[in-house]
């Protein structure tokens, strides 16, 4: 049976259609959910918070979206052990909502960065990256101004100890290359229960080799099992 993916849309979200396209391409049933809804559709297998500029990034990226009615439902959905994926602004919303640890700062060089970047799979023992192997390298677009992931030393130790660092930025050979100043070049993490995932890069924009890369397919496929 095809998987059901609910895609949350806030005012200012702009990647909901790309995300829908990506999951439909993988054979999923998709529904875009306006943030004023207070319930996740029944039988939803995965909730995706897509990229964009929810609430114009006012105050801090993701800070206001956290108060939308749908976020209470997303929190409950996650607490029940279901899968939630936050991409780019979605990752920012998840850290501001305390569903993921850490915080996002302005990119170290203060620029909005928009380009393809290589990523290394740091840990594949999770639902999201289950179709990949540790050390695998993918080429995925990044597009953000506030992607400089920060967590203090104690938090970082805890992320390491629980294998919560799932993706890091690297060059084509897998050597560390840090585009935005993120602690440990972190590009993506998961929560302790391994059901909430956040990453700054956009796998949904890497679904067709004619558009530069189809590496997003093997990432998102993890949710199909």
């Amino acid at each position, binding site marked *: 049976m095809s998987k059901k993916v609910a895609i949350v849309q806030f005012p200012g979200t702009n990647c909901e259609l790309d995300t829908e396209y990506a999951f439909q391409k993988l054979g999923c049933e998709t529904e875009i959910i306006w943030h004023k809804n207070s319930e996740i559709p029944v039988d939803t297998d995965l909730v995706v918070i897509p990229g964009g500029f929810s609430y114009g990034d006012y105050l801090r990226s993701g*800070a206001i979206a956290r108060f939308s009615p749908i976020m209470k439902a997303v929190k409950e959905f996650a607490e029940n052990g279901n899968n939630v994926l936050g991409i780019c602004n979605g990752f920012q919303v998840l850290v*501001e909502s305390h569903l993921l640890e850490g915080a996002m*700062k302005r990119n*170290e060089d*203060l620029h909005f960065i928009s380009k393809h970047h290589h990523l290394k799979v740091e840990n594949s023992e999770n639902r999201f990256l289950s179709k990949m192997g540790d050390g695998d390298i993918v080429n995925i677009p990044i597009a953000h101004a506030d992607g*400089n992931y*920060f*967590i203090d030393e104690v938090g970082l130790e805890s992320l390491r100890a629980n294998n919560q660092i799932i993706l890091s930025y690297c060059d084509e050979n897998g050597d560390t290359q840090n585009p935005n*100043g993120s602690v440990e070049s972190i590009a993506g993490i998961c929560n302790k229960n391994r059901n909430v995932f956040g990453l700054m890069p956009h796998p949904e924009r890497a679904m067709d080799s004619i558009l530069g890369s189809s590496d997003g397919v093997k990432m998102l496929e993890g949710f199909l099992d």
Partner: protein
Amino acid sequence: MKAIVNIYLKAGVLDSQGKAVHHALDSLGFQDSVSDVRIGRQIVLKLRSGSKDDAKAETEKMCEELLANTVIEDYEIEILDV
């Protein structure tokens, strides 16, 4: 009652904007005058609180819950009786 909230990145968290402005001031010839630059955000609240203590306590709560991201930011609150 008025609350003036100043929010800055914590000491030890690199402030890229502050650093960039520091470099710019250096190149304007202020290198001997300026030893550090921090850039923050100021939020001014008009409050209905009855006392300064209430105003402070409420504003602190607002900072903890929304106005600052205490993972990376510190805040200072000034209450004015106006």
